[in-house]
Structures are given as C-alpha cells and as structure tokens.
C-alpha cells in the first residue's frame, strides 16, 4: 500500500532533516568544506570595503544574508537551522547589523527589543501560515486516504505516462488560476496534496532521489508560476501603475 499509516511519519520527514541524520556524511572533507564556505563568504564580504553610498551596517547585513543563501544552497545543516542561525546572529548584534546610527540615537529606542520584533516578524506573515495550512490539508488527504483515491483515479485515466500526468496537473492549475487568486491557496492547498499522493501511488517516497514523483513535484512547482501570470498580472498592473506612475 502506497500510503501506510504506520510508515507515514518516517516518510514525511523533510529532505533536510533526513540528510542531517546520515551519520556517514558528518565528518567527510566534503561536509567540512560545505560548513566552512558559507561562513567564509560572509566574513570575506564583511571585510571588503563598503561600496560608496551604502551604510556600514547595511553592508554587514548583506554579508550575513549572502552567507545564509550560500548555506541554503550547500546545506551543511538543514535549511531551517541555517536561516534561524542567520536570523539570530542579526538579532544578537542589531547595533552593528540592523539599525542605522540615526535610529539608534533616537531617544527611547531600544535596539534589543526592536531587533527581536523584526526577527520574529516573519512568523506573523500571512503567507507563512497559509503554507502551513496547505501542508495540514495535505496531511488530511493523506490520513483519510482521499488523496490516494483521487490520485489512483487520475493514474487510472492517464497513468500510462508520467509526462501526461504532468500535463494533467498543469491543466488543473491553469483552469483554477482565474478563480483562486491566491497562488499559494491554489497551488499549495488544492494541487499539492494531490500531487504528493500521486507520487506515492507510484511508490515514490519523499527523499528518495530516484523517485518518479519528482517530475510531478517539479512540474507542480514550475507550472504554477505561469498560471500566476494570468491571475495576478492584471491586478498587479493596476496596483503598480497607481504606486509608481500616479
């Protein structure tokens, strides 16, 4: 059975987490290099002369930011651990990294608490919660078996070829695009749960690099943006025209 309640939690663990748990990878030279590079990039950038017109603290912030991005690409640790460490580093030294001297000299300005407010602001972002909701919806599809059922029906109809399934997913998202203006709600809440179960019907488990499901995830992610255009462009144009020109 593709979706087995007893094996699901293990299968669900994220790629990053599983990678970190691999004991053999811990001390190889490759891994050392991966861990050092992001820090080295950040330090070297920070030591370079500040470009003209940019305040010192902004340059330091940018250095940390680039270090985090390099870390996210190389993944010496899971992405969440890297992003959280970078964030904490900034929150720890807000006087040098986050705030300008003018801000700091304002009477009553408390850098530590202001920095913490900034650091946690991402967690009150609606998008973060919408994405969380999409994952929980996917969990519901998985636990009830509804996702598997829908996936099986889809595979029965077009499952002879995974490319055809990719087109099926693309079409579904395109059709929904004009009706659900939020791409996250559409692609995350409606399409993703089905795509996720679709991959498992092919007995493709997350974190298995040779998984047939990857083409589906992939298509799911990439096609999404094309549809956004249809839904978003018009609104966006009016907004920006108002902001920029008017």
């Amino acid at each position, binding site marked *: 059975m593709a979706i087995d309640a007893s094996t699901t939690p293990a299968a669900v663990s994220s790629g990053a987490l599983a990678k970190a748990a691999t004991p053999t990878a811990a001390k190889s030279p490759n891994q050392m290099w991966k861990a050092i590079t992001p820090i080295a990039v950040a330090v070297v950038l920070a030591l370079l002369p500040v470009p003209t*017109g940019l305040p010192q603290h902004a340059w330091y912030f940018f250095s940390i*930011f680039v270090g985090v991005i390099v870390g996210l690409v190389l993944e010496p640790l899971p992405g969440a651990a890297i992003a959280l460490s970078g964030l904490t580093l900034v929150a720890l030294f807000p006087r040098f990294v986050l705030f300008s001297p003018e801000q700091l000299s304002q009477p009553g300005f408390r850098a530590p608490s202001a920095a913490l407010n900034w650091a946690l602001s991402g967690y009150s972002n609606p998008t973060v919660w919408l994405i969380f909701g999409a994952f929980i919806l996917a969990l519901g599809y998985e636990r009830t078996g*509804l996702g598997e059922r829908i996936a099986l029906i889809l595979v029965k109809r077009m499952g002879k070829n995974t490319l055809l399934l990719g087109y099926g997913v693309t079409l579904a998202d395109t059709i929904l695009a004009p009706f659900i203006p939020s791409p996250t709600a559409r692609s995350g*809440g409606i399409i993703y749960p089905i795509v996720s179960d679709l991959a498992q019907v092919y007995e493709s488990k997350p974190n298995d690099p040779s998984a047939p499901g990857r083409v589906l995830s992939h298509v799911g992610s990439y*096609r999404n943006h094309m549809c956004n255009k249809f839904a978003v462009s018009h609104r966006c144009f009016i907004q920006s025209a108002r902001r920029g020109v008017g």
Partner: protein
Amino acid sequence: MDWFRTSVTAIIPLLILIPLLSYWLYPPEVKHSTEVSKWVAQKLEKIGRLSRRELILAAIVVLSLVLWVGGSAFVSATTVALIAISLMLITRVVTWNDITEDKRAWTTFAWLGALIALCDGLNRVGFVKWFADGIAPHMKDFSPHMAMIILLAIFFVAHYLFASVDAYTTALLPVILLTGAAIPGIPLKEFALLLCMELGIMGIITPFADAASPIYANSGYLPAKDYWRLGTIFGALFLVFFLAVGVPWASLLWEK
C-alpha cells in the same frame, strides 16, 4: 485585457513546454508502465467506497475552495486555511498529534518565517534602495529600448534576494519603475506591464522566491541542490524567452 494580449505569446508556449522541459531536464525514473493501470484498478477496488472521514474532508476542501474563490472580500486566504485546519481538528479528520508529527509543515514554517524576516531586513537597512539608485546613472548610455531590457533583466535576477513576490512588488518594483520613468523614451505603461508579468515567472528561481515554492521545495522530492540548480536553469530559460519573445511582441502591440 491588455495584460492578456501582451503576455499571451510568451506564456502559452512556456505553459505547454514546461512539463516537457522538466521531463527532459529532470527525468523521472518511472516513465511509463503498462502494469500500472491494472494494479491501480485492483487497488481502487481494495480501498472500497468513500469513507465518512473522506467525505468530511471533501466537504472542508469544497468549503475552502468556495471561500478562496468568492470570499476574498470578507475573509483572507490565510484565514480560510486556519478555518480548514480548525474544522479538520474538530471533526477529527486529523488529530493534534498528527499535526505535531508533520515535520514538513513545521520545517517549512521555521525556515520561511526566518527567511522572510531576513529578506525584509535587506530592504530595512536600505540595501535595496541603494542597489536601485545605483542602477539609474548607468542607464543613460543605452537606447531606451535597451535600457528597458536591461532593467527587466535586473528586476528578474535581483529576485534572488527576496522571499515572496509580494515583498518584491512593494520594495523593488516602484523603484525600478521610477528608474524607467526617468529615462526618456521608455513607454511607461508597457514597461509597467512587462515588469508585472515578470513577477509571474520569477517565482521559480529559489525555494523561497514565491509563496508556493516553499511547499514544493520542502516536499522531500526536490533536494535543495537540485532546486537551486533547476531554478537557475528554468529562470534563465524563462528570462531569455521573455526578453526574446515577450518584449518584442509587446513593443509590436504597443506601437500601433
């Protein structure tokens, strides 16, 4: 419908090509199987009729769909998601224990919350404005058309530094638009339209480039290294196609 007429030549071909390109650039292990249909039919038989829990979930999904489609005036998309979570918990479609065990959901939550703050910080410390101001003086040496193409390319590539398209729309789009407005000869309406269209294709480049990407990036099917690599390949393809087909087409349309 200006936006539709302008985008159609760049978007429809890409829409058709994307599944095929993904298939070529990131080939699946299982491409087709004749046994699948038979096996699937057996399996469908085995799981039997719709269960009560499935029906409840279906109802919650339909309700969310209705609210997402028609409710944006009085309930935000995120609130709808929270409603769906609550209803799933109340009806015991999922238990709280299930939610605590969902590593993908929590990992993405921790990861994205941190990244959104970090990207916001780049704007807050004035880096973004400095970057955009730095472009303007260099644009004087180019023809208006060339300057427009360069600005469009910069707008696309600079998205590497941003989490979510919304943040980008507020932070960089107005600045780039004003830079364009300062150059005589750039048709402003066309330029604004093209910038907005780019917003739709730039979401692929990083795992946090738009709000749907984190979901697929953290699905476990796309290792980070592959995501960044493919993001760059597809991003480059999209950008080249957009500049080579979309922009000339737009110019053609707007010259009339």
